């Protein structure tokens, strides 16, 4: 028989972990940022993640906005990159959402300047990086000329 074999549809994958008790946080997920549409995908994914973690509406908006800023930076200045979502817990048991935004771009030559409001090398407003720092609880950047840029930000739930 020359017809192709079976077509198995992966409709019955492993069960998703229950999200009600939050004992088992979701696995980290990575999203590429290569196009303008990818920014949309990232925002949607981050929005869903903030709901999953249990943030209130204002915090949801904060985290999604910060993600949008950082992802756009990676897209515009870094020539594209990835956004990874992680679900950490601090020693006091608070749940958090961590965004790791990485690109292989030219890196940031003067980090202090880049964090200053109104500083921009492009045509933006120059509030993205500093704004993202203010919107999140923790903020760190690893960068250097020619080394790409990795921004890690975390927001914790209040308990």
């Amino acid at each position, binding site marked *: *028989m*020359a*017809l*192709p074999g079976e*077509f198995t549809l992966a409709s019955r994958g492993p069960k998703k972990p229950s999200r009600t008790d939050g004992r088992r946080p979701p696995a980290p997920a990575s999203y590429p940022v290569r196009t*303008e549409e990818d920014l*949309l995908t990232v*925002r949607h994914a981050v*929005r869903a993640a903030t709901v999953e973690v249990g943030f209130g*509406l*204002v915090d*949801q*908006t*904060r985290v*999604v*906005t910060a993600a*949008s*800023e950082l992802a*756009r930076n990676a897209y515009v200045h870094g020539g594209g990159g990835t956004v990874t979502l992680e679900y950490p817990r601090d020693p006091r048991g608070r749940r958090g959402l961590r965004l790791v935004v990485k690109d292989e771009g030219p890196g940031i030559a003067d980090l202090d300047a880049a964090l200053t*409001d109104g500083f921009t090398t492009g045509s*933006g*407003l120059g*509030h*993205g990086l*500093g*704004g993202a720092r*203010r*919107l999140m609880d923790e903020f760190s950047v690893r960068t250097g000329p020619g080394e790409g840029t990795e921004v890690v930000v975390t927001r914790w739930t209040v308990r």
Partner: protein
Amino acid sequence: MRERLTRALHERGDEIADRWVELQMEQALLDTDIGEAELREEADALIEALVPGLQSGVPVDRVVTSSPGLHEAVVGLSMRRARAGATPTATSLAVLALKEALLKAVQRDTRDAEELFASAVFMNRLLDVAGALSFETYVDGREEIIRRQSQQLMEQSTPVVRLWRQVLAVPLIGTLDTARTQVVMENLLQAIQDHEALVAIIDITGVPTVDTAVAQHLMQTVNAVRLMGADCVISGVRPSIAQTIAQLGIDLSTILTRATLADALAAAIKLIDGPGPDGDEGDGR
């Protein structure tokens, strides 16, 4: 092998087409409007195109893609299926069912196992490409539809409505990227001219995220509106958005903003009526 297949196509073309149509009808749990007559027509066209394709002498696995008639027949078939709503699996399977029909025809001419096996391998090489092409076409067809829809969506989701004498409003839904901003601005500026409007309200209730890029696009639009001699009010600033904008450090203080569309309309009417008798300049700033 080619000759055998070509001969079979010549001599038993009708038979092959019949069998193929039959196989597709059997498979066809597909809920499409494609009837038997249409299937038959497609089958005849494709089988007819196969003969010159086989005679062209190109390697077997490139016959389908390099023979224009054959390529067109497969692409046409797949496009029609895609539009009729068939699944990509059903579409490729339909194309691949031709193998069985062909093999059956060859089987009539020879019973030699080795020769039949060689024929089967040959047909696989020939038609797997057709199956892949069909799948690709299907996806292209769908993507075309998606592209068109997103374009339509962009135009539909930026209506400019007249709220009051000389007051226009644009309720924004979704995100505000560069392309959207362009559409909004063009529509709004044109409407300002058409209606001789003095105030334009941009309502961002339906914008889920206002980041620096969106804010910048809003400011651009406001600037353009002002250049036309009209004033601009931004409404629908929800508490969470207000906090986020403030924390981002975006200065929107030069722009008149309101929490709700109703407030914005009130402010707009005040602006139009101009300074009151006591010289109060209202909210114009």
